[in-house]
């Protein structure tokens, strides 16, 4: 396992030149269809039928999406120290695209599902780790990856008394979007997700870190997805066989709040959801920012990387598509 965070403080993101986008791309059409006719249908059709259609679409997607599938196999190979032709990776890819489609369906159904007690099967594994972390009254910072089931888990935890403030990017760069998508549809899609997830602040909010701190100081929960570089403080690290930059700013918020980190991973979908809470991690102090990040991220990255290796088809972060 190669989660050694060499934690050199990375330079901030350089401003990339603006992309020249065509008026419309396939992704724009997908957003348009998803946000309007498909969303409207999910409001009126029976759940059983929607799940059946979702299951069929999920099977078809893994066979139809050839370019994303190839990109996924090429990304999986170094993480598992094998070649893209490995049958094990092909099985992961099949399941990955099925999970992606089921997540898109779950997002559409979320409002409907949580109006009534409809989640049929939920497993909370080691919830005691979370309650133990919260017992000091300083809140807890949930740290995890971009799991397909993450939004469903967040929403579910709120209904059982664990509301979570999520941190994310309201307007991520998307090179697959055309002008129409970037100008209008992405905003609509993010607004839709915002309504779906609830209790969400943007990393671009100048008060982002202070809002996180306020929530923690009131004994609440904040969730940071630490597998994407959304932070003012980034560290260079080797993660899943690739050199990348990962965020470290959340460590400073947790340090100031005096709260523990709780590794979180979420598996499955609305018909069978599993949420696993890891053992709380207490931050270790260090004389400077670099060694503080180095000391605290190495173990965390090791845990998060192992979670992904154990459940590769559940992680949304392999490719952007």
């Amino acid at each position, binding site marked *: 396992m190669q989660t050694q965070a060499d934690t050199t403080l990375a330079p901030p993101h350089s401003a990339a030149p603006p992309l020249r986008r065509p008026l419309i791309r396939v992704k724009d059409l997908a957003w348009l269809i998803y946000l309007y006719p498909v969303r409207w249908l999910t409001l009126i059709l029976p759940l059983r039928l929607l799940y059946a259609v979702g299951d069929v679409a999920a099977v078809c997607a893994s066979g139809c999406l050839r370019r994303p599938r190839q990109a996924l196999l090429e990304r999986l190979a170094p993480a598992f120290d094998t070649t893209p032709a490995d049958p094990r990776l092909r099985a992961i890819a099949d399941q990955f695209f099925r999970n992606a489609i089921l997540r898109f369906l779950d997002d559409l159904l979320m409002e409907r599902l949580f109006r009534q007690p409809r989640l049929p099967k939920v497993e909370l594994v080691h919830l005691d780790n979370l309650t133990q972390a919260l017992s000091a009254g300083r809140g807890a910072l949930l740290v995890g990856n971009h799991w397909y089931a993450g939004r469903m888990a967040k929403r579910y935890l709120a209904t059982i008394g664990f509301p979570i403030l999520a941190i994310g990017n309201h307007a991520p760069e998307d090179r697959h979007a055309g002008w129409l998508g970037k100008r209008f549809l992405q905003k609509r899609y993010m607004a839709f997700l915002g309504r779906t997830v609830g209790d969400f602040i943007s990393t671009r*909010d*100048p*008060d*982002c*870190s*202070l*809002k996180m*701190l*306020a929530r923690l*100081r*009131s004994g609440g929960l904040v969730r940071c997805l630490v597998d994407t570089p959304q*932070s*003012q*403080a980034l560290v260079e690290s080797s993660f899943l066989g690739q050199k990348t930059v990962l965020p470290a*700013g959340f460590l*400073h*918020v947790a340090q*100031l709040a005096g709260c523990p980190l709780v590794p979180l991973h979420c598996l499955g979908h609305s018909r069978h959801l599993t949420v696993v809470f890891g053992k709380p991690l207490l931050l270790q102090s260090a004389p400077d920012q670099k060694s503080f990040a180095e000391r605290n991220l190495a173990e965390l990255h090791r845990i998060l990387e192992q979670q992904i290796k154990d459940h590769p088809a559940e992680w949304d972060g392999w490719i952007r598509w």
Partner: protein
Amino acid sequence: MSTPDHVLHRLRLLADSSLNLNLTAGELASLTRLDEVAGFDSLSVLQFLAAVEREFGLTFERAQLRAAFLADLPGLAAYIEAHCGKAC
């Protein structure tokens, strides 16, 4: 007893040290807003906040946890003076 000016001066020194601004004495004396300082972002506001809380032995309430409030040094000095009084 501390005065708002004295507190303001201490805040300027704290800003200079916690944010590594390396300001000259003249620049320091005219520093009133941190959000006009290059590199004042959501991470540096945390560093400044931590330094201020440590220095004055206080914990800001939820309503004060805003970058615009913390960046306004005269306003912050008045708040600290009002809340700490002789203690700071």
